[in-house]
C-alpha cells in the first residue's frame, strides 16, 4: 500500500500569542515548531497500516525550507520519504494548498490529512484534494482499518460511532485520539537522516481567501485572585466553590 500523509509546520506557541509588528504572523523568534497533533496521529496511523499490510509512506509538506525538520521527525516515526514544497515564505490559502498537493498526489492508495490544520483551521484541504482526484473522502476519523481494498472509517458522534466504508484509493482526515503516537527511538532518528527528501518550488497563485491581518483576541492577560499558598488555602477554595454554587 502506498500512503501519502500531509503535514504542516506550525509554531509551538506557549502561554501567549505574540504577533510580529506587521500583524501578518506570530512572532516565532523564541519558539520551537511542530505539526498538528491530528497530523502526528495521521503519520502514526500510516506507519501502523504499513506494519500490517506492507507498503511505503511519503510525507508531504508545503512550507519554508526549515519544514524539513518536521519531515525528518515523521521519517523517524517510520515514514520512508519526504516531499518539501517551498511556500516562498508566505502562507498559501487552502485552495492553493490543495492544488499544490494534488500535483504530487497521483498514485497513492490512501492519502491522510489532519481534520484541520493547527494554525489556520480551514477544514477543507483534504476534501478539495479528494475532489480534484475524484476519490472518496471521509473526515474526522477516530478509527480506521483496511480490508479487501476497502477502508472502514469510524467517526465519534453523539451516542456512539458512525461507520463509513469506502473503496481505495481514498482520502481520509483524522483526529487526535485515533491512536497514541509512538516516540521515535534514537536509532530511528539517525536512520531518518539518510532518508530521501525531495524539494520542489511550485508557483504560488493569488489568495482567494486572503489573510489581511491577525488579531489577538481580547481576554488574554487576566490577573488571577490568589486564594492562598499551599493546603492552608483549602477553606478559601471551598468558600469560592459555595459562592459559585458548585459545592
Amino acid at each position, binding site marked *: 500500500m502506498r500512503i501519502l500523509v500531509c503535514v504542516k509546520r506550525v509554531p509551538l506557541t506557549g502561554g501567549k500569542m505574540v504577533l510580529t509588528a506587521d500583524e501578518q504572523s506570530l512572532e516565532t523568534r523564541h519558539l520551537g515548531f511542530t505539526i498538528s497533533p491530528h497530523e502526528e496521529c495521521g503519520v502514526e496511523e500510516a506507519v501502523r497500516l504499513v506494519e500490517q499490510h506492507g507498503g511505503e509512506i511519503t510525507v508531504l509538506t508545503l512550507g519554508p525550507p526549515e519544514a524539513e525538520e518536521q519531515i525528518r521527525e515523521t521519517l523517524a516515526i517510520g515514514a520512508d520519504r519526504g516531499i518539501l514544497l517551498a511556500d516562498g515564505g508566505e502562507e498559501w490559502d487552502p485552495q492553493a494548498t490543495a492544488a499544490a498537493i494534488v500535483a504530487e498526489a497521483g498514485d497513492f492508495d490512501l492519502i491522510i490529512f489532519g481534520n484541520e490544520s493547527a494554525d489556520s483551521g480551514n477544514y477543507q484541504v483534504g476534501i478539495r484534494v479528494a475532489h480534484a482526484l475524484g476519490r472518496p473522502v471521509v473526515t474526522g476519523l477516530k478509527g480506521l482499518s483496511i480490508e479487501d481494498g476497502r477502508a472502514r472509517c469510524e467517526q465519534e458522534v453523539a451516542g456512539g460511532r458512525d461507520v463509513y466504508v469506502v473503496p481505495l484509493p481514498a482520502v481520509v482526515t483524522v483526529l487526535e485520539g485515533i491512536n497514541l503516537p509512538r516516540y521515535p527511538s534514537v536509532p530511528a532518528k539517525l536512520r531518518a537522516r539518510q532518508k530521501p527528501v525531495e524539494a520542489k518550488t511550485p508557483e504560488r497563485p493569488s489568495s482567494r481567501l486572503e*489573510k489581511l491581518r491577525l*488579531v489577538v483576541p481580547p481576554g488574554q492577560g487576566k490577573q488571577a485572585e490568589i486564594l492562598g499558598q499551599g493546603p492552608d488555602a483549602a477553606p478559601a477554595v471551598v468558600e469560592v466553590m459555595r459562592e459559585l454554587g458548585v459545592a
Partner: protein
Amino acid sequence: MAVLVLVEHGEDELSRQAIAFASGLGEVEALAIDGDASGWPVERAHVAEGMDSYAPGAWARALEEVIDRVAPTAVVAAGTNRGNEVLAYVAARRDLPFAANCVSLLAQDSAGGASANGGESLTVTRVRWGGSLLEEARIHSSLPLLSVAPHAVPAAEGAGSPEVETFTPELDESDLLVQVAEHVDEVSTGISLAEAKVVVSGGRGVGSADGFGIIEELAAQLDAAVGCSRVVTSAGWRPHTDQVGQTGTKVSPDLYIACGISGATQHIAGCKGAKKILAINSDAEAPILASADYAVIGDLTEIVPAITAELRKARAP
C-alpha cells in the same frame, strides 16, 4: 437579496447562531435536510426530502440545487463537523473559496470595489488556533461560503413562519459513495466532560497515571468530570477522551479547576468557555494565571487532597 443557510436538525442552537450571523448579509432562506422546517426563524425554508443516512456529497448536492434556484449572495452554515464538511464539498465542486469558523462580518465590497482582485469580496473575522487567535480575511468571490464558529454570536430567537418548499434532490451514485453505513451505539459512563458543571483537570504536574487518584477523589466530591492536558494523554496516563483543548474536548463548566497545568494557548482554547477558572500551580508565574480567575500557589499533591477533605468536612453531619 437572499442569503442561504444550511440548518441542521439536532444542532438547533448552532444553526440559529448561523441564521443570526447570516441576517447581517440579507434576507435569510434556509435549507433543511428532511424533517419539519416550519419553526426556523427565516423567510423561506427549502426542505430536501428522501435523504436517508448522512452523506456529505448528497447534502452538498441539495445545497447546490438551492443555490442554483435562489442565487444567494452568500451561503452560511454552522461550524459543526457537518456544516464545515458540506461547505467544503460545495467549495471543492465549484472551485469557490470557503472561510471556516467566522465570528463576525467586517465589510462587503461589490464588484470593482476595494477588492485587490478586482472582483467582489467580503471581509470577515475568523478564528485560528481553535480560537486563540483571530484573522481578518477577505474572501474574493461573488458567492462567499462561510461557516460560523460556535458561540460567536447569539442565536436567532423565536419561531418563524417560513414558507416551506420541499424538493427531492437529484443525486447520482458518486454523491452517495461516502455515506454512514452503520451506527455503533456506545454507552457513555460517568459525567460527560463537555456538559459537566465542574471539571477537575490535571496536567504534567500530576506526575503519573496513579497521581490522578487525588484528582478523581476531588471530582467525586463535586460531581465533576475529570479532564487533562495533552502532555497527560501523550504519556498514556489518561485516554484522549479526557483531553481538554484545541485538539481535545471544549468544555464550558461553571468551574474549571486546572491542577498542574501551565496554561498553553492550545489548552486554554478548550476551557476558556468556563465561567470561572481556578488554577492550582506551584509556579506563581505560570501563564495559566493570566487566564484564571482564582489561583492557589503550591504543590497540588498537598492542595488537592486538602480541598477534598475540607469539602468532606463541610458535608459531614
